[in-house]
Structures are given as C-alpha cells and as structure tokens.
C-alpha cells in the first residue's frame, strides 16, 4: 500500500489537511422519533462529531402554571397529569402534598397506601417506556413489544380505579379519588408476577446484548459531582453514584413501613448505568407494591374536604420522588378559592440543562444514547 493510501485509511488522517471538512448545523428534531417528544437540539457538527449543542424547547408550552391561576384547587388537579404524561398517576401527588401542607389536611391511612400502590405501579410503567424507547433507539424492537405488553396490564389496573389509562387523576388532596373496585387487589397481585417475568425477558434479550452494550457502556459518563452541580435527581442521580432517594432518605407518605432497597450504582454513571438503575428500581417498586397490597388497611380513602376549598393565605411547598426525579410544587394561596400562583419544579427541565455541556466531542449516535438515557419528557419540561 502506498504511503498516501495508508494515510487515507488512518483515522487520524481524517483530521489532517488531507480531508478538509466544514462545520455545519443540524437541527435534530423537533419532529424526530429519537428526541422522544418535541425537543430540538441545534447541533454544530464536524463530520459526525458534535462541536456544540443548544437546547431548543418550548414547543409544548401550554402555560399550565398560568391556567392554574384561573381554576379552583380541585379543578387544577387533572391538569397536573399533563406535565409528565408518561407517569400521569404520580403527577398529582406533589400537588396534593403541597395543598395538604397549605391547609393542614390529615390523609387517611388507607389513602396513603393506595397512593403508594398507584404511584409505584405508575413508576414501573414509566420506566418500562424508558427502556422500550431506549432499546428502540438502537433498533431493538423486541423489548419495545415486551415493555408495552407489561405496561398494558398496569394501564388496565389504573383504568379500573380512575377511568383513564394515561392521564390518571386518582391522587387528590385529602386522599384518593375513589375506592378500588372489588377484586382489584387480587388482580394487581397477579399483575406483579407478570411484570417480574417480563423484566427477566429484558435481561435475556437486552441487558447482555453486545450491540446494546457497545452503544451504552462508557458512553457519556456523568460523575457524581457533575450530577449534583447540574441539579440531577431521581434515577439519573442514583446512576451517577449518589445515594439519594426521597422515599428512603426522608420518607414521605408511608414509605418508611416497607422493606426495599434504594437502587444506586457506584460506577461510571454512563448510559448503561442509567438503564440498569431503572431495571433495579422496577424490581424494588414491585416489592413495595406487593407489601402495600398485603398490608392495605381498611377505612376511609379520603379525608373530609370540600370541593370548593379556601385554604388560609400562605405558601405550601412539597416534594415527592416522581418517576423522573424529584418533583416539587409551590402553591401560594391568597385565601380565595383559586391558587394565586402554582409552580412546578420539573426534574427533566434540570436534566436537559447538562446537554450543551456534555455534547461537544461526542458523535451523533452517542448523543442519541445520551438523550434516551436521561429519560426526559417534554410535557414537564415545557409545562
């Protein structure tokens, strides 16, 4: 082989004068399957390598926080499910907690258990979507079908109690909206076995798959310091090795009554860790639901609160561990029937903040892995 040819095949030569390249701008999204919603990344590329990236969001901005100012407290609750539409049932929880702090409402014990059951089922469903779409981004179709099969069972359970499959408005201030139908507890228990069975299926087809590992292992690691600096919470924070989970570190509701482990990975914090952490967390969630179904006490499922409610003027701020991280609500009351100000602290909103800092130097395919592993939902970013 001549020296010139040899040089041409040498990858370093690509950077040399032999091939002159030009930077160009690529708009990834807003309509692109791997952006998982109407997210746009404005990438400046040199070949396949990203030089710089910029977040372009707001395509789904509906001004829900402004809408809240014109509705009563009870009327606004269903709107909260529109934030993170992949985990609808978990969304009103933080809002309900903020209102309960504001008005000093005691929640009946049975309602707390039902909240935990519904919340954890929804967390599993939400993580299943993450794994499905994560795998799909690498061209793996089978896990998608498995995940949606398992999620279907959860959606059916949620439909039975609330009437809707995705935007589940079940958790309300003072407790939960309705009593569970007859036989629901047994059906839920049976569903848990199916979920565990499906989780094993993922391990068979995905977790050890060489292509999958090649696309995720060591890709865009986020260190613990970086994760804290950028405001990471939830699964992404724990995948970076920070042992922090509100359910465990400062339990709310009745989480202190269940035996479960906090899933945390002390590793690199790469895309695979973020995937694997969600797999671990789903198994823990199943444990929690099983115990809660066993222990479910009898009694009222909602405290006596009026539908048109006037809390005293003041401020309530509450946090819960939602599917994507710590979700917070600030509710300010002026003593009338409508909230003066509602603010939602969105975990995904902070997660995408890191993208412009991490993107330079990685290739587009790694960028796709990174985006999918962060598991953001545009509904709660854009609000």
């Amino acid at each position, binding site marked *: 082989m001549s020296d010139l040819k040899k040089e041409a095949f040498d990858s370093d030569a690509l950077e040399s004068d032999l091939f002159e390249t030009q930077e160009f701008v690529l708009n990834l999204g807003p309509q692109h399957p791997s952006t998982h919603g109407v997210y746009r990344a404005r990438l400046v590329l040199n070949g396949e390598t990203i030089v710089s990236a910029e*977040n372009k*969001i*707001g395509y789904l*901005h509906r*001004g829900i*926080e*402004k809408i809240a100012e014109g509705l009563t407290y009870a009327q606004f609750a269903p709107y909260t499910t529109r934030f993170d539409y992949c985990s609808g049932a978990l969304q009103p929880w933080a809002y309900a907690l903020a209102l309960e702090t504001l008005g000093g409402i005691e929640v009946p014990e049975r309602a707390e258990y039902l909240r935990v059951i519904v919340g954890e089922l929804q967390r599993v469903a939400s993580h299943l979507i993450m794994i499905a779409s994560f795998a799909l981004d690498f061209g793996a179709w089978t896990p998608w079908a498995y995940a949606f099969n398992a999620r279907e069972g959860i959606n059916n359970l949620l439909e039975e109690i609330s009437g809707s499959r995705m935007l589940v408005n079940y958790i309300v201030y003072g407790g939960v909206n309705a009593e569970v139908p007859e036989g629901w507890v047994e059906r839920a228990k049976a569903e848990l076995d199916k979920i565990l069975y499906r989780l094993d299926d993922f391990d068979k087809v995905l977790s050890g798959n060489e292509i999958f590992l090649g696309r995720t292992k060591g890709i865009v690691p986020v260190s613990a310091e970086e994760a*804290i*600096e*950028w*405001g990471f*919470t939830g699964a992404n924070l724990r995948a970076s090795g*920070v042992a*922090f989970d*509100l359910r465990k*570190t*400062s339990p*709310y509701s009745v989480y202190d009554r269940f035996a479960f482990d906090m899933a945390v990975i002390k590793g690199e914090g790469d895309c695979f860790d973020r995937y694997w952490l969600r797999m671990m967390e789903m198994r823990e969630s199943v444990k929690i639901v099983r115990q809660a179904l066993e222990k479910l006490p009898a009694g009222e499922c909602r405290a006596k609160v009026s539908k048109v409610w006037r809390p*005293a*003027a*003041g401020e309530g*701020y*509450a*946090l819960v561990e939602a599917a994507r991280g*710590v979700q*917070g609500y*600030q509710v*300010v009351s*002026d*003593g*009338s029937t409508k909230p*003066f*100000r509602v*603010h939602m*602290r969105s975990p995904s*909103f*902070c997660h*995408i*903040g*890191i993208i412009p*800092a991490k993107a330079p130097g990685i290739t587009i395919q790694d960028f796709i892995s990174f985006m999918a592993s962060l598991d953001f939902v545009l509904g709660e970013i*854009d*609000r």
Partner: protein
Amino acid sequence: MRDLNVIAAALPGVEMKDGILVVSADRVPAAVAAVKKLGDFMLFDITCVDRPALAAAEGVQASPGSFELAWRFMDLRENSREVLTLKAFLDRADPSAPSVMDIFKSADVLEREVWDLMGIRFTGREKLERILCRDDFEGHPLRKDFVMPKRSRFPEADKAAPEGAVDGRGVKA
C-alpha cells in the same frame, strides 16, 4: 435540613425572619456560595411570585418588594424534604438579581425560566434568552399585570378573508 440557625449564621448578609432566610439581591452570590461551601446542598429550583396583589390580601404581611424570588436548595444529607429557601424581594421598577450560574450550573436553565415567565433580569451571565416562550414573544406571562392577548398568535389568519373566499365547510366568509 440541617439546623436552620446554624446555616443562617454561616451565610453572609442573610437575615432570618419568621423562619425564612432573607437576603438583599446584591448579596445573593456570596450567600449561595456559602451554601455550597456547607456541602451536600443542591440548587434545584428557583421560584418567583409576583407579590403586590398578594400583599394586599388579608392575612399576608406586606412585603417590601414586588417580586419574591426564592432560591431553593435540597439537603442531600438529612431530612431533604425540608427545603432551604433563600428569598430576595425585588423592586418592581427594575427587577434584577445577580446570576449564580458560576456557583451552581443548574441555575442556567432555572434563571432563564424565571426571566422568560416573570421578567427577572439576571445579571453577570453570558446570555439570558427566553426558554419556553418563542423568541419574539412580548411580555412575561406569569406576571400579574400581564394582559392575555385576545388575538391569535397568527395575526394574518385573523384578517378579513378575501372576497369570495370559502372556509373549510364551504361557507362563504
């Protein structure tokens, strides 16, 4: 959260009023840097309330400023659901506060959100662009004096239809 009195003593320029830490806007970076120095605190939210209408309501103490800006920190060490809140009250004429982006990087998107929706100007950072509303949007929608636009966002569509035009149902305009 760790003991609030101990924290308050460690932060420069911070006064404690009824269990709330209040700081003047220009001393925010020093206070936030001191919070970071305490260790295991995460800046996870910046919230803003347009205050004047609320101050007039019954039962709420009138606040010296119009905008109540709050930096919220989560204690990763203990009792994390109690949020460490640092509040500053800003004048309505020129609501601005220094950026803390150099101290906590999470402030980048959070400050842009507050600028976009509330119109609080954060000084000393590279670029402060809108993040949720479109770039040519006028006003800051979560302010209480924001007037909801009556017209649609596509003004050309609101103009009178040309002579003889029919709409989707075949009805003459």
